[in-house]
């Protein structure tokens, strides 16, 4: 089945917010081209966008690796940011450590991680303070 696997890699640039969303837009285009169900595409791209924005806001960017199989889409976003001291707390809707500047751009509502959970079938957050964070997002194509 290896010929049915599509792998994508993106660098998430942290220079500014103007390119944030490029990786998730790219994945959205690829999934559309592959003829994946639009609802699945929406779930993947929204969850991935949130993770991408988080990497920009909190961690000076990172990398995204995406694997698309006929069964599922797996997105792994890794950064070398400050890490999340308390993942459970970070999962609480409305809880945010974003700066005022980030909030003025319309982010920092404390909805990022909750949105990722809401739109995926499986979500894993591995984080170590001072080392970085790895978020794995899985959306099933075939349920």
């Amino acid at each position, binding site marked *: 089945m290896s010929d049915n696997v599509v792998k994508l890699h993106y660098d998430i640039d942290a220079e500014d*917010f*103007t390119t*944030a*969303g490029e990786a*998730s*837009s790219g994945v*959205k285009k690829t999934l559309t081209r592959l003829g994946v169900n639009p609802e699945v595409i*929406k779930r993947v*791209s*929204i969850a991935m*966008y*949130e993770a991408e*924005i988080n990497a920009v806001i909190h961690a000076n960017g990172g990398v995204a690796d995406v694997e698309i199989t006929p069964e599922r889409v797996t997105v792994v976003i890794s950064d070398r940011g400050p890490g999340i001291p308390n993942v459970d707390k970070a999962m609480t809707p409305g809880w945010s450590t974003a700066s005022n500047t980030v909030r003025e*751009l*319309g*982010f920092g*509502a404390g*909805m*990022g991680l909750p*949105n990722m959970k*809401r*739109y995926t079938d499986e979500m894993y957050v591995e984080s170590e303070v001072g080392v970085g964070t790895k978020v794995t997002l899985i959306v099933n194509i075939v349920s």
Partner: protein
Amino acid sequence: MTVKEVAEKLGLKILTGNGEREIKGFYACDLLSWVISHARTGDMWLTVMNNINILAVASLVDVSCIVIPEGVEIYENLAQRANDKEITILSTDMSAADTIIKAHDLISGK
């Protein structure tokens, strides 16, 4: 009813895009993560946010258009990127609430 038809009747100014999408609903909010999780495909989205990130949100949610109310201006680089992405942005001096009420009345034939 299309974005263009509503714009013409309510005097909304089309700044970018062709406005040919059908308006299927309405949504007003400035918190982008909230919009991502609550707005629906085809919505007319009203926000005073005028930074580049609204384009990614509009594209991900697949709204029919963005309306910038209260006379808030948009910058040239936003307009250019919106045209590149074929996203329709409109502007109006009306408030978000007035715009939605009038557009809703128009579409529902009141």
